[in-house]
């Protein structure tokens, strides 16, 4: 039995198999307790009050920022901006940095395997500025060749937007190498870490990311808190995204001077309780250790892929190497629509994702309408993999095909 499983109240029901971790992760009790403790013992509006509770709330919020900075290997805590989720972080970069730095004729390079959240903000900037979106095309297993990177990232490129790990194929990308290419032509790199930060140790300095974003909820933190890391000099020069309370220094009838980063980007009352919850999730993930997480996921993925290969009519997408999946196994069953597959599995209390996974350009490129996706985390077990494979093997029959 997996020793960490008992930390998750929702996983106490042995009947359910949760294989939709790429959508959101389950929460350990310590995260929920940290949030409750904040509201029960120190709730007040942070950054405003001059009394004890507000000071405590402010300290907890800023301590969470320190923790995130440390977790990502940032130089300073002021390089960490709290947002609602990865999507909001990416929009902040596009609206603020993108609109200020992309001009007519410039190019924004976007990987075809991106989540819609790392596509639509760039479409917006490109349309508004008359700039061009250039697509990085991957091979059929989700890898990007050096040739493709060097051909597409050119002196016209202002921004390269790419996920460290794709939410459909799970393939990790060599971010440092891509960052070096981007920097050599004077572009910045925006790294979507929504699917990487929960699964591998991230160091934004080592990968030389200019911007790096992730969502707290995929990392066992609460929903509603996300992170934007940006290099100090970039954030410092960027115009604000949202304006209003908390983000100002001085306001007259006509004008305002803005607060220093990161507060310049955190207009309005901040989500301190969920930042505290995210800090607890980071402590928890560190106590588990990325070595354990990576190893466990790799073994579970290898087992799952092996069992799926033995089932006729099942196609698994992505790399043949289990370690290049980050726990994500995307597949289809011949003749069976993914929604029917997931309904049949649901009847067996197995939770998977079916559909386009918010990555329609990639699915169009893979030439499929929709797929099924099983995504595992370190708290899943071999027994669950066996049960999943057993149910999966029966799906075609349940959908009326002779076996």
């Amino acid at each position, binding site marked *: 039995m997996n020793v960490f499983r008992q930390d998750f109240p929702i996983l106490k029901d042995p009947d359910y198999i949760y294989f939709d971790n790429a959508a959101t992760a389950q929460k350990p009790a310590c995260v929920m307790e940290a949030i409750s403790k904040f509201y029960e013992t120190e709730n007040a509006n942070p950054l405003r009050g001059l009394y004890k509770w507000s000071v405590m709330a402010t300290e907890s919020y800023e301590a969470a920022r320190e923790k995130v900075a440390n977790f990502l290997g940032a130089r300073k805590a002021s390089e960490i901006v709290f947002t609602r989720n990865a999507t909001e972080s990416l929009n902040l970069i596009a609206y603020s940095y993108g609109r200020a730095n992309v001009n007519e004729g410039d190019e924004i390079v976007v990987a075809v395997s991106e989540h819609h959240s790392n596509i639509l903000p760039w479409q917006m900037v490109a349309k508004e500025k008359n700039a061009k979106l250039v697509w990085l095309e991957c091979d059929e297993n989700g890898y990007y060749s050096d040739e493709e990177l060097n051909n597409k990232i050119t002196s016209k490129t202002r921004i390269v937007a790419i996920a460290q790990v794709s939410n459909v194929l799970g393939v990790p990308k060599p971010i440092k190498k891509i960052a070096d290419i981007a920097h050599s032509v004077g572009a910045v790199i925006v790294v979507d870490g929504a699917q990487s930060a929960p699964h591998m140790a991230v160091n934004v300095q080592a990968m030389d990311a200019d911007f790096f974003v992730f969502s707290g909820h995929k990392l066992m933190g609460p929903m509603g808190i996300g992170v934007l890391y940006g290099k100090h000099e970039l954030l410092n020069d960027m115009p604000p995204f949202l304006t209003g309370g908390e983000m100002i220094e001085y306001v007259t009838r006509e004008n305002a001077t803005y607060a220093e980063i990161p507060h310049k980007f955190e207009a309005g009352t901040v989500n301190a309780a969920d930042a505290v919850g995210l800090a607890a999730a980071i402590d928890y993930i560190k106590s588990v250790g990325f070595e354990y997480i990576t190893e466990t996921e790799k073994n579970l993925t290898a087992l799952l892929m092996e069992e799926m290969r033995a089932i006729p009519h099942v196609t698994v997408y992505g790399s043949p190497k289990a370690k290049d999946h980050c726990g994500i196994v995307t597949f289809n069953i011949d003749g069976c629509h993914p929604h029917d597959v997931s309904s049949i599995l649901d009847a067996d209390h197995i939770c998977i994702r079916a559909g*386009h996974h918010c990555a329609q350009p990639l699915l169009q490129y893979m030439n499929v309408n929709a797929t099924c996706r099983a995504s595992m985390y370190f708290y899943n077990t071999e027994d669950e993999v066996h049960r999943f494979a057993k149910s999966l093997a029966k799906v075609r029959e349940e959908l009326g095909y002779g076996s």
Partner: protein
Amino acid sequence: MDLKEMYREIVNEHNLHPTHKHALDNPTLELRGVNPSCGDDITLQLMVENDMITDGAYVGQGCAISQASADMMLDLVIGKSKDEALKVADIFMRMIKNEASEEEIESLDEAAALQNISHMPARVKCAQLGWRTMDEIIKGTEN
């Protein structure tokens, strides 16, 4: 009826061996219906003479529930007047929202088997696709 039974007893047959999945030669009415979020995509064709639906068919692709539901719908409405067809569609739509009476549901014949979809919000649109499309084409002829 549980979900697997629903597939086994009704949905699979209509999905894998549909009666009406083909193209008509000269349909009087034709409309495409799409559920963009799941890729269900059908084109419904009707032959209408003197306000009577004398024939109907569909082509397209999608999940078993969307396809089977369209097939069962055509079983029910071919031979009915436009008004009667709209009434059946109304009952079906209400059944899927858990708002139809027992009696009404019985009048839907085999399509009544889809009533459990009302407990599966993610599949409601699949079940409704053919019906919604028929409702739109017929109503489109009225103004």
